[in-house]
């Protein structure tokens, strides 16, 4: 049996952050602090209620659901996502996507190259036509356009 219920972590984190926010809000001008105080004030006791109730549930019934289904796969996917966001600034959107989609598929267990490459190509084509050509939305610049220029 785990010693801390998920709700205890959630409730106490919320209560601490809300108290901190409440304290920050007291520094705002009188007009600007009314609403933040009205929102953050009740968040502190609500967080405490959730935390206390969670611990009582753990003591009474031993009920404490697992937070992660698969921690290793969660952190793997999250790490690829973070790398994709970092790469976006340096490589550009289309290049990053052309790397991320096959890499994520491979790491998560789908390893048929043809469908993966075909889907990636179709996806990038649709994004290019809709966002860049039709809607004229500028996407992060591609690294190969910078090398050329």
């Amino acid at each position, binding site marked *: 049996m785990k010693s801390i219920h998920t709700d205890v972590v959630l409730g106490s984190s919320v209560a601490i952050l809300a108290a901190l926010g409440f304290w920050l809000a007291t520094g705002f001008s009188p007009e600007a602090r009314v609403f933040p105080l009205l929102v953050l004030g009740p968040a502190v006791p609500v967080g405490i209620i959730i935390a206390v109730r969670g611990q009582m549930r753990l003591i009474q019934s031993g009920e404490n659901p697992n937070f992660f*289904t698969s921690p290793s*796969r969660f952190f793997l996917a999250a790490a690829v996502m973070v790398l994709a966001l970092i790469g976006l600034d340096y490589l550009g959107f289309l290049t990053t996507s052309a790397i991320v*989609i096959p890499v*994520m598929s491979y790491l*998560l*267990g789908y390893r048929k190259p043809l469908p993966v490459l075909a889907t990636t190509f179709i996806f990038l084509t649709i994004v290019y036509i809709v966002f860049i050509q039709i809607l004229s939305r500028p996407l*992060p610049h591609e690294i190969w356009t910078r090398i050329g220029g």
Partner: protein
Amino acid sequence: MDLFAPLLSAIPAVLTFPNLLAMIGGVLAGIIVGALPGLTATMSIAVLLPLTFTMDPLVALGMMAGIYNGAMYGGAIPAILLRIPGTPAAIVTTFDGYPLAQQGKAGYALQIALLSSAFGGMASAVAMMLVAPPLSLVTLSFGPPEVFWVGVFGMAAVSVFLGEDLPKGFLAALMGLFIGMIGLDPVMSTDRFTFGQLELESGIDIVVLMVGLYAIPPCLEMAEETLLKAKHGQKLKFSPFLETIRETPKFFKVWSWAYLYGIIIGLLPGASGSFVSFLAYERAKKISKSPETFGKGNPEGIAASEFGNNADNAAALIPTVTLGIPGSSVAAVIMGGLLVHGLQPGPDLFRNSADIIYGFMIQMFLTSLILIPLGGSFATNLFAQVLRIPRAMLVGLILCLSIVGAYCVQNSIFDVWLMFGFGLLGYVMSKTGLPLAPVALGVILGPLIESNLRLSLLLDVRGEYILFTRPICMVLIALLIITTVLPPIWKQIVLRREKQMMNKQ
């Protein structure tokens, strides 16, 4: 009969070839844009507005009407197939649409969404044509105190009804209100919780928040479960469309409530389709004989949500065209479109440009009608195929689509990181049983509630407590108490009775 005369005379102008082409093109563009998470009807109309500069005003308005109605349905497609609302108004559609898709009934869920959207849009257009003038008088009596209470009522109702756990529902609502107040405050422009970040001064964009909260958590959950579930894409089952049409009478009761909410809320500035969907969904759950099936794939949930958010479409335009007060962000963009074409909203619009404004109302009706053949053959059969893509590959595709959606809002990498941050928050919320919907509604309604609260306090110069003493406010407060206090008490009474019964047995 004077009411119908301008309507009838506008019909020939609406049925011209360029007009029909603009409406069809608009609906198709709207479905595609609405289906892409991160792109909203507001954004697409705003982006496509320059394309209409050279068009005849009625043709331009036809295109805008098509995009509007198309996008409102398009938002349901990823909501049902991927649990990612394509538009903010489609949040509620995810509740039952996604579970139905998981049961292999994605095609059926899309058909229900399509019919509800189309009928909702048509009914709303009829309201705009016939019932709008007397209804718009009601909103004239709504001042800041009344709008404040409507917002509070919406937040409270969502917290109580959407979360299975009252403190968690309440906490989620408070989180939403908090996120909504990040940036410059609406009255005095004081920096609040920006921590010196210039990008946060304009506040959190609802699209960035929505994409993060609704797109990233399913990605992470799919990544965790890819080994546990089959790697093959799911096969879709499409029931004959006529069969689904024959089923529609069973949704009439749900649709009627959604219609009522759509018209009333649509008239209120700032309260949009997403809010209507929440209320319509809650009502459908209340009047249902099997409320426990809501959230697990009840088609009535989709019908309420989709009819609700489309019933608001034309209604939100009523104060826009009659008073020049946009009822929603889309209405504001459409108002911009009217001004671009030299049409000044207000009573003069009905006198001087009757053929155009009545023609626009007919276009709102026709573009909803066009949805049925276009949405049926185009979206249902084409976009539904995304479920065939293996889940491992879908994770990367959704991530990239989310990135482009968040980036396009302000062309900012900061927004992409913000979206990812909200994604992690959504994941934690999903794992700890905190409902996501009150957060989204809090961000939408928070600024509306705050600005009207502060305006009410400013108006109360004589200390008459206008927030509590005005008749409509008193009615709204009573409704607030009834909907928030009574359900938990009733739940406790039922639980006690059940315990007593168990003890007796």
